[in-house]
């Protein structure tokens, strides 16, 4: 016997604990099935691109912290690379290594959040999140040693980093890496082959490779769909051409693959951090540059990095002044949301939050 149902429209968010910030999606359900999806954005829009036109090139670094606030280091890096490309400069080797090291620690921190919340959204309240946050907290402590801030780091500058790491940073980093090896193993043992997690996520909301490409999806979501594309490999920046690492690639692009790719990337990031420690040499960390930078009138640069969410790009246009004439931010979180409809349509209410969590968006970056 079938039960007669009629469509019902539900607002999920903008104030909802599982939408990763102020994301709202209007969903029409028929019974438990999702029949219509409309993402509604803009609740955290602060006009970052306009604000950047009023600040000088160095001051804009502080704005980038506030894009994806769970991976500020990588935002700094993307912006600084764009400015360096605009000015035709290159940071000293030690600066490059410190940037690579900070960015990889940040990637671990960001993926730990993604994985922790993903499992939380499956209904495992609290415990797994505490496991991942325990390790993330230690990374934030390390950032505090580097630059005095934990979230809004502003550690990097065009031409290098703001200052060299203090001497007690290196033993603290070694201690963290030793401890984290065990902590990560614990998380992996808990989650990677967890039967409940697998039953709930395998085969759910798969994303075929051609859809992913057509929707301009990038980062772990693209790689989960079986495409081997990582900007750290394809166009190495900073010290990435000096380190060895693998690019984990998924299979069907279902919720499990997206989770699995992030777990594997944490391991690869650890590898990169260890190589950075082994290879880094003493020397200057920042180029001697004037306090106020100016680029040639008409100069343009598109600087991009493999951020924790995907391809983060800064398109800068100069008119010869002290601030960028235009600072366009190519935000991976916003563009990865293009697949929302594809992921949700036809699936059940219970999978909706999990699928959204598997994309790992950050509203600071979606709305800018």
């Amino acid at each position, binding site marked *: 016997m079938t039960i007669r149902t009629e469509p019902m429209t539900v607002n999920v968010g903008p104030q909802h604990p599982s939408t990763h910030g102020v994301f709202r999606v209007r969903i029409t359900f028929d019974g438990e099935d999702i029949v219509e999806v409309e993402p509604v*954005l*803009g609740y955290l*829009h602060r*006009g970052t*691109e*306009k604000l950047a036109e009023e600040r000088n090139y160095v001051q804009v670094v502080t704005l980038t912290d506030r894009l994806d606030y769970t991976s500020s280091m990588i935002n700094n890096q993307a912006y600084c690379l764009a400015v360096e490309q605009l000015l035709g400069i290159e940071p000293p080797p030690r600066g490059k290594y410190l940037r690579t090291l900070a960015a990889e620690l940040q990637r671990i921190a960001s993926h730990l959040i993604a994985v922790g919340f993903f499992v939380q959204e499956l209904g495992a309240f609290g415990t797994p999140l505490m496991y991942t946050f325990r390790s993330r907290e230690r990374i934030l402590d390390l950032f505090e040693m580097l630059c005095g801030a934990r979230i809004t780091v502003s550690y990097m500058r065009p031409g290098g980093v703001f200052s060299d790491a203090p001497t007690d940073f290196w033993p603290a980093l070694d201690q963290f890496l030793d401890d984290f090896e065990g902590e990560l193993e614990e998380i992996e043992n808990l989650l990677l082959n967890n039967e409940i997690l697998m039953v709930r996520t395998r085969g759910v909301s798969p994303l075929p490779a051609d*859809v992913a*490409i*057509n*929707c*301009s*999806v990038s980062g772990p979501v693209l790689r989960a769909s079986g*495409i081997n*594309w990582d900007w750290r490999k*394809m*166009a*190495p920046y900073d010290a990435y051409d000096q380190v060895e690492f693998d690019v984990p690639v998924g299979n069907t692009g279902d919720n499990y693959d997206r989770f699995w790719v992030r777990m594997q990337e944490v391991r690869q990031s650890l590898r990169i951090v260890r190589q950075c420690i082994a290879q880094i040499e003493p020397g200057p960390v920042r180029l001697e540059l004037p306090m106020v930078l100016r680029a040639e009138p008409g100069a343009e640069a*598109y600087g*991009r990095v493999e951020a924790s969410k995907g*391809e983060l*790009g800064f*398109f800068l*246009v100069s008119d010869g002044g002290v601030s960028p*004439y*235009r600072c*366009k931010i*190519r935000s991976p979180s*916003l*563009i990865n*949301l*293009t697949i929302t409809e594809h992921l949700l349509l036809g699936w059940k209410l219970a999978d909706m939050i999990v699928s959204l969590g598997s994309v790992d968006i950050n509203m600071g970056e979606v*709305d*800018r």
Partner: protein
Amino acid sequence: MTLAAIPGETLARRLQEATPDAVVEWDDAAVWVRPEAMASVAAFLHDDPDIDFAFLNAISAIDFVEHFELVYHLMSLAKEHTGVVRSRVYGREEPTAASVVNVWKGADFQEREIWDLMGIRFTGHPNMKRIMLWEGFDGHPLRKDFL
């Protein structure tokens, strides 16, 4: 940067064969096309086996006051090369360009954002609504004359 970039001249030559009258000019880095031809240009660049721009990285809009400029950063995952297509859009009352959303679905939110913040309309976009600001907001904040 190790990814090869297709010179603007190469793109221009191919486009002149496939979509006559679309190309305006070119330099080393990019080719300029007419905004109303953007949809057919996009379809050609996407489908051509040599160029194979299956992936749209970003659409940026710049307000140069006397005109707007759209910049399309494109790439091919299979061929591992990139390219840049640009388009000058004139007029401040109702500047329009052809939407590429039927070729690259990834353009959907980006074109809506450009309409919202820069005020360039995209014809052929199925849902040309504001995305960051609310409907009824007065003006387009990323324009240089918006203070």
